[in-house]
């Protein structure tokens, strides 16, 4: 019993260990790396990815995949820029509308996947092109967002002392992670998601609402992607149709590094949180160093993703035999 428990949490512990090791190595290698400001900046910089990755975790837990998240995020940013700047909507209304669009788009994808039995990767790949193209329809160029609400929100946050401020973006990120943990591990919907990912046929035979769960999961993911877009506009005060290219892989990588198994049914939202921090730390190290080619970021995240999948394989093989 003890051993089973240990092997179950092993991926999560490995993730934590990698994070600590990365931080320790960076702290030893670079001066001033181990400071609250660096950590805070990491949170600020990766908040949008963190939120998107939570949504992705739900989709992967249900046994699916969503490749459209980066494009949905990009669409959200230009949508916000357009309706706030061009049409004069009030910012909070625009944000709610944007998240609503994200949820709706996600649910539509989930419905197509479920009802027509088309592979999730194909539907969401098409969704990615659809959303990216629509972003370019809204605005072919990057647009600045000028809004008193944005300026005001930029100055607000949770003071942490020493002049450090946890701004709204990273705060939203932490809230989403907490909410995700509650939903995944403490609600009926969460249990259905795990059941669906574990074995769809048995979930259906048990009388669980398979269709509604799947539609809901993609809705959550679309909503998270849109919320990621909102956070990104808060950080950069602009909308850009090219933003979030390749984000889907980062989000998948974060989930997998955090111990979520790609075939579904097993994983933790908290693990994804750690995964995002690992990816963020690698990026921070590359930024800190300056002499390393930024291309290493892609290779490192690809390699790390591969390493963790192999680790999962190894664990799965051991627990079977």
């Amino acid at each position, binding site marked *: 019993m003890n051993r089973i428990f240990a092997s179950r949490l092993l991926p999560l512990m490995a993730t934590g260990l990698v994070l600590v090791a990365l931080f320790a190595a960076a702290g030893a290698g670079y001066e001033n790396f181990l400071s609250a400001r660096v950590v805070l900046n990491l949170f600020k910089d990766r908040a949008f990815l963190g939120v998107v990755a939570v949504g992705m975790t739900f989709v992967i837990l249900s046994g699916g*995949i969503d490749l459209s998240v980066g494009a949905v995020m990009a669409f959200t940013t230009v949508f916000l820029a357009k309706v706030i700047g061009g049409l004069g909507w009030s910012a909070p209304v625009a944000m709610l509308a944007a998240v609503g669009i994200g949820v709706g788009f996600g649910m539509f994808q989930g419905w*197509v996947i479920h*009802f*027509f*039995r*088309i*592979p999730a*990767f*194909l*539907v969401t*790949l*098409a*969704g*990615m*092109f*659809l959303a*990216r*193209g*629509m972003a*370019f*329809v809204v605005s*072919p160029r990057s647009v600045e967002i000028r809004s008193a609400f944005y300026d005001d929100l930029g100055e607000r946050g949770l003071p942490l002392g020493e002049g450090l401020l946890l701004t709204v973006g990273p705060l939203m990120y932490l809230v989403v992670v907490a909410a995700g943990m509650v939903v995944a591990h403490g609600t009926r919907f969460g249990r259905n998601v795990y059941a669906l990912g574990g074995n769809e046929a048995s979930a259906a035979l048990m009388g669980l609402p398979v269709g509604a769960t799947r539609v809901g999961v993609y809705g959550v993911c679309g909503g998270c992607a849109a919320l990621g877009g909102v956070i990104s506009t808060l950080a950069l005060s602009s909308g850009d*149709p090219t933003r979030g290219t*390749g984000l889907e*892989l980062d989000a*998948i990588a974060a989930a997998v590094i955090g111990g979520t198994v*790609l*075939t579904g049914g097993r994983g933790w939202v908290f693990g994804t949180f750690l995964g995002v921090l690992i990816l963020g730390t690698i990026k921070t190290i590359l930024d800190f160093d300056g002499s390393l*080619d*930024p*291309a*290493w*970021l*892609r*290779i490192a*995240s*690809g*390699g790390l*993703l*591969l390493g963790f*999948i*192999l680790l999962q*394989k190894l664990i799965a093989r051991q627990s079977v035999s």
Partner: protein
Amino acid sequence: MKVLRSTLVWPLVALVVLLVFNAVASPGFFHVEWKDGRLFGTVVDIFNQGARVPMLLALGMTLVIATGGVDLSVGSIMAVSGAVAAMQVNAGAPMVQAVGAGLGLATLLGLVNGVLIARVGLQPIIATLVMMVAGRGLAMLLTGSQMVPFANRSLTWLANGSVGGLPVPVVLVLGLAVVTGWVLRRTAAGLFIEATGDNEKASRLAGIQTGGVRLAVYGFSGFCAGLSGVLEAANISAADPARIGDTRELDAIFAVVAGGTALTGGRFSLAGSVVGALLLQTLTLTLYNQNVAPAVAPVPKAVVILAVCLLHSPRLRARFGKRTQPVAA
């Protein structure tokens, strides 16, 4: 009505519809002229550009999808091979060696995909997604994220030259398609691929080396992507590591699916994929002709690919018509 059952019919019908629309909407669409010993015209362009990327990628992708997999890394592998070929000619290597190096590395990356999938047992989507990101990173790393311009007549000829009046890529790619199709259908290789995609376990028990089959198709897909990347670089005499092959994996999947190869594997049609690639290229060109911005062009493409998939969907087929019911075995 055997003709209607052929998977080739629908992509051909769609292609004809598009061509008729173009003939009406843009006069001179079918104008082809002979100048300086080669053919010029919009239709020739469709063949040329269609061959260079979608058709070539679709060749490899068809076989990958037939085994029940998918290869998302083709765009990144294009970037790697284009960059390698460009850097080789800049270093003074002859064209054949440069192209060989690009193709070799591309095939190797494809084989890495194959090993991860066939030997390690990763899901194809994930293994090739990793390669998609790491491959793009490799291309950036090799070139220092800079565009690599080059001046090499014989490499440029590969994309812009002509053989017997036809553009070199058209001859090259159609030739490759015919040879591939001939080899697959005249030997048992095609059957092995379809068997692997249909039921891997049963095929393995029947004595087919399914691991070897999968390894080979991903290697071949890498090779095709590599050739496509070299041609893309040769076309503009420069390799752009960030742009070459970007989002082209969807084009390849589009061509394959539109051509009647089922995503579930077990069946393939190379001829269908060739027609699918021409359909895609014609659609792209039609959108440009109708002044749709290039960045917006993916929207209608995505709609078409979804529509095609819906038509293939068992649910829809069950509802609308017994015509498409499979013959009981």
